[in-house]
């Protein structure tokens, strides 16, 4: 199985993001075991060394921790931590560019707020 990866960014970063997504969405609850490097490698058809690099990125951020001889586990309390990190990114990635684009089209801050409310209702 090959999942399409973004060509413009390193794979190990994308592997780390996928694991974070699984934690946020509850597929990997806190204190649960993360699939092994080899399982990841086979599943995504990615070189195991690349997967390991992505996993180690999360170990460095204390999102995952290693139980010797057993494997990698999700640390306690990290779900909130990842969500906080993502909220900052959300501002950078979406809000800033949205406000900029709105400005180009002459949409005022009030109109934009109104649009967001409308979008929220329709969800």
């Amino acid at each position, binding site marked *: 199985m090959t999942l399409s990866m973004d*060509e413009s960014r390193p794979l190990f970063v994308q592997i780390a993001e996928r694991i974070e997504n699984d934690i946020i969405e509850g597929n990997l609850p806190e204190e649960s075991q993360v699939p092994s490097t080899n399982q990841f490698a086979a599943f995504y058809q990615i070189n195991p060394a*690349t997967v390991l690099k992505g996993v180690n990125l999360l170990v460095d951020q204390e999102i995952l921790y290693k139980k010797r001889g057993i494997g990698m586990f999700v640390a306690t309390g990290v779900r909130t931590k990842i969500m906080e990190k993502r909220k900052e990114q959300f501002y950078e990635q979406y809000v800033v560019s949205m406000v900029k684009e709105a400005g180009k089209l002459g949409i005022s801050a009030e109109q934009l707020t109104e649009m967001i409310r409308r979008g929220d209702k329709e969800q």
Partner: protein
Amino acid sequence: MSTVVELQGLTKAYGKVNAVDNVSFKLEENKIYGLLGRNGAGKTTIMHMITAQLFATSGELKVFGEAPYENARVLNRICFVKESQKYPDNYRVIDVMSIASSLFPNWDQDFADSLVLEFQLPLKRRVKKLSRGMLSAVGIIVGLASRAPLTIFDEPYLGLDAVARSLFYNRLLEDYALHPRTIVLSTHLIDEVSQMLEHVLVIDKGKIIIDEEADALRGRASTIIGTASKVDTFTAGKDVINREPFGGLASVTLLGELSAQEHRQAAEIGLEIAPVSLQQMIVHLTNGKWDRKAEISL
């Protein structure tokens, strides 16, 4: 990390032509390498020298720390799967497997048997009666089941369909994870294998032009698309590897990472930035249009 293969200024000359021209690189233990380049770039010549089937004109070559020629200690540990491997006329598939099992010390018969089933190879059929794809499958099975510390696949899948190729990639990665070894994949299907590679070597006209970690190459090239004049202003002074005009628009491919600031700058003047796959990047670098000024500084 110990070195399995080391080339130092290796050259192979045919008359006045250097098929391999002063090439130096190292292959480290237990990594998967991609040896990529166009037909006639010198890939197969390099592989033939590493596997002691061809003498170098000059330079130094060490495999497992020794000269490979007529050296059983070295050759026992190499499995070379060639694009057009020849087998004796009267050999059946089962005979090839049995010879392979006696040649390779790490041969795994159970693994070979399961691969024969998965690739649906008729064991009793004569090799010369096999279809092109089946013949490729024989080589792939020998390459995988031999578990040789240095396994080289030179365009192993002529005639193999997408399903069989995918099977090959899956089994290769699974088995590599359990039994790490040095693997060299030489192929033109770069997009298919790029995610599996740990390190990439690109050869062009006998010279190595890229020797880099595969993941680090992602995002190294990008294509800028937009109004021709704006694109040209933005890309001026940068390392342009391809330029295609399209009406009043232009699409220019650049080598080198763009900073966050450059991304913003491009967005502000309405330019689109598209990622470039490893395959596209290599096509641009080796199509002969791009005039290499010096070593690529990646």
